[in-house]
């Protein structure tokens, strides 16, 4: 409408092209990827994969753009130097957190109601993995942030034989069950909030039927230890990472998927809280990578992928309200990034060609050696 806004929009476009160059400038030279056939021939057996979704919803401008890099010191300084970094990953699907994460997990843009408690329609990567490699249930786990995600582990079954799904663990549900009639239950509410986007119709968890045996049998934690540790945490995502650590110790699953979600507090419109969420997620990504490196079951054989489910609305789109939501479907809200780290991954390398969010599943299949016939994406050859 007016020149000022047009110029800013152009700057935003520049940012997307140049942000990695700028980020790379902070760490030194970053090579552009060239695929090596020998690299792809590395033996796949024994590999483990951890997928971290940098959710829910982060924009370039608060992360890899020059003005945002101060919010992600762990990604910039610790992880990118070891990573192959894909600078353009576009989500062409529905920009709701559950349906988008489900799409990441199936390799197909799911079209169900984001707020419905339904399973993905298409086979998940967890089913492909277990069936393809004949793996037992405990070799794959999903750690999910909220009630809406609890059916992400297995598809509805229409396109795939049932029984190959991943167990999904909802740390908030576990904590809720552990708290029971805890006298100071209210003090834990900030770890139990299920949704920032729709807090009125998804209030804090009430009593659920999650059996406490899951805590003791699966995580080998006593109720007392679990609640005591929860008291030291400041966010739901920290609780998720704590549960992840327990799962790694108990089962050392070969495919582990964790969805972080704190930054979705942006829906409340307070920019400072959104930034805090990003900074915490950045710190947790660094922590997860260190957990992997310090665990002999994982060290030297684990590939970690980090990617947002999608971005948030542009400041310049009049139909949105900037960072607060992800409703416009504009380019900024659809375009994100992905990084891959691990012993078979080229370090300090960028992939600048546009990728698609649904490319993740076939890439995991190629990396770990199983077929993903229903996935619509294409293998990202630069990371296999």
């Amino acid at each position, binding site marked *: *409408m*007016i*020149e*000022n*806004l047009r110029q*800013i929009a152009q700057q935003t476009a520049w940012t997307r092209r140049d942000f990695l160059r700028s980020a790379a400038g902070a760490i030194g030279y970053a090579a552009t990827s060239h695929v090596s056939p020998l690299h792809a021939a590395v033996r796949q057996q024994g590999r483990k994969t951890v997928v971290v979704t940098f959710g829910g919803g982060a924009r370039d401008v608060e992360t890899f753009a020059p*003005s945002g890099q101060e919010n992600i010191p762990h990604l910039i300084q610790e992880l990118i130097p070891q990573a192959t970094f894909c600078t353009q990953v576009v989500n*062409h*699907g*529905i*920009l*709701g957190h559950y349906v988008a994460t489900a799409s990441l997990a199936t390799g197909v*843009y799911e*079209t*169900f*109601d*984001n*707020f*419905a408690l339904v399973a993905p329609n298409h086979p998940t990567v967890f089913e492909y993995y277990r069936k393809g490699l004949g793996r037992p249930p405990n070799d794959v786990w999903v750690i999910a942030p909220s009630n809406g995600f609890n059916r992400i582990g297995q598809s509805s079954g229409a396109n795939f034989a049932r029984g190959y799904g991943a167990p999904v663990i909802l740390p908030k549900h576990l904590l809720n069950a552990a708290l029971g009639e805890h006298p100071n239950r*209210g003090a834990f*509410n*900030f770890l*139990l*909030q299920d949704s*920032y*986007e*729709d*807090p*009125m*119709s998804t*209030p*804090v968890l009430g009593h659920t039927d999650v059996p406490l045996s899951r805590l003791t049998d699966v995580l080998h934690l006593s109720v007392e230890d679990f609640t005591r540790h929860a008291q030291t945490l400041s966010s739901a995502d920290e609780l998720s990472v704590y549960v992840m650590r327990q799962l790694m110790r108990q089962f050392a699953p070969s495919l582990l998927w964790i969805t972080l979600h704190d930054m979705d*507090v942006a*829906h*409340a*419109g*307070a*920019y*400072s*809280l959104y*930034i805090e969420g990003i900074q915490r997620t950045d710190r947790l990504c660094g922590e997860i990578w260190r957990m992997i490196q310090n665990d002999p079951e994982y060290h030297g054989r684990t590939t970690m992928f980090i990617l947002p489910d999608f971005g948030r609305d542009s*400041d*310049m789109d*009049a*139909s949105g*309200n*900037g*960072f*607060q*939501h992800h409703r*416009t*479907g*504009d380019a900024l809200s659809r375009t994100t990034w992905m990084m891959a780290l691990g012993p078979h991954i080229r370090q300090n390398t960028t992939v600048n060609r546009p990728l698609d969010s649904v490319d993740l599943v076939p890439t995991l299949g190629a990396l770990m050696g199983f077929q993903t016939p229903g996935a619509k994406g294409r293998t990202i050859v630069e990371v296999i």
Partner: protein
Amino acid sequence: MRPQDLRAKSFAKYPPQARAFAVANLAVLRQVPLSLLPILLREMIDYDWRFPVEQRVLTRQFQYLASLPQPSFANLMAPFAAVRLPAAIGKMDWVNQPQRFSEQLSGLLWSMQQMDAYRAAALTYQKTLEQVLVEPVPAISRLSIVVIGQGVPHSDRVLFRKLRPHGTIFTKVQPEDGMATLIGVVNDRAREHPAPYAHWYIDGGEPEPGCGLPQGVTLTSYHALAPAALKELNLTSRFVQQSSARSGVGPEAVQSFMAGLGPSDLGLHGDPSQTALRHFEVNVLTEGAGAQVFSTTFVQWTAREALRRAQPLTLFARFAPRQRMAPMEELLKRDPLTQKTDPEGSLIDADMGAYYTWINQQRLSGADRSCFLAWYEGHDIAVAIGPGLAKGTVSDSPANLRKIVAWMS
């Protein structure tokens, strides 16, 4: 019902002015595709308490549509006509519940992967209207003033980072009587250019005296509306509990419930001449996520909506410390005015809010002449943007706020 089935009696439940407007434009309405029509009706159904600018814009829009030759009209509507909608949605009462229809439509567009096409159609439609229905440049330059940082005695943050490239940073502002000076500027403009809803004062806390209705300024504040916000949250919570007991409730149902609330539901009464403002305040609280619980969100969202809808000549927005973050469960239930505050976090919120306010002002007519000032309350730093000031520069010369305002235009 199909659009072509609309009759005058279809609008019997509309308020008087809205009904008259709809009936007068019936011929146009009958030709608009269903994927667009309820969006227009959303504007129309509230006609009686729309701001004068909004009424004028809506009138001009329909005059334009009515004036189009049939092929041009069909061409303009073609992208919307191409949207595939399931038959079930046409059975909704989209005439009387256009808001609800819009929410359903949004979900459908996403799930049917038509959102991108619809978005493109909407942008094209909007662009066409903007080109044809050019809003007149205001008689005086628009001015927005944003005051941030109340309650933060010292900050090491680099403030106004996003605004700096567009104007001049003043590092030696004389802060004495700053608020009184700015209120004087606002009141002077309201006195010299009186018009309904043309001059606004939005405060995130308790408003300063001497700037409001008697001065010709539209005033709204978080302090005044927090009880209404709490009432809204209580009503909604009760609705959710009752609905959940029956069959569960989804976000669309919650939104529809909130959209049905009016000023009297929230205890918002007052001068009958301010009916449009009361409805605006209800819209702010029911449509603005977070505006109920955080005063910083309230100010940013209210400023955005005031600029978008009322297109004021003057907007004065002052941020105040919001309550501290807490579990949503608590935020939605407690009185925000009696909680401990987070001044430092609020400063960050407000800094971004100032940037968004400038962006929203720049969307209005006369943007190249518009002026914008953001000031760290009680401190010596401000950023000023206007045709009279250089971009991306720093002024270390002592100056008071009245002078800076004068230099902008």
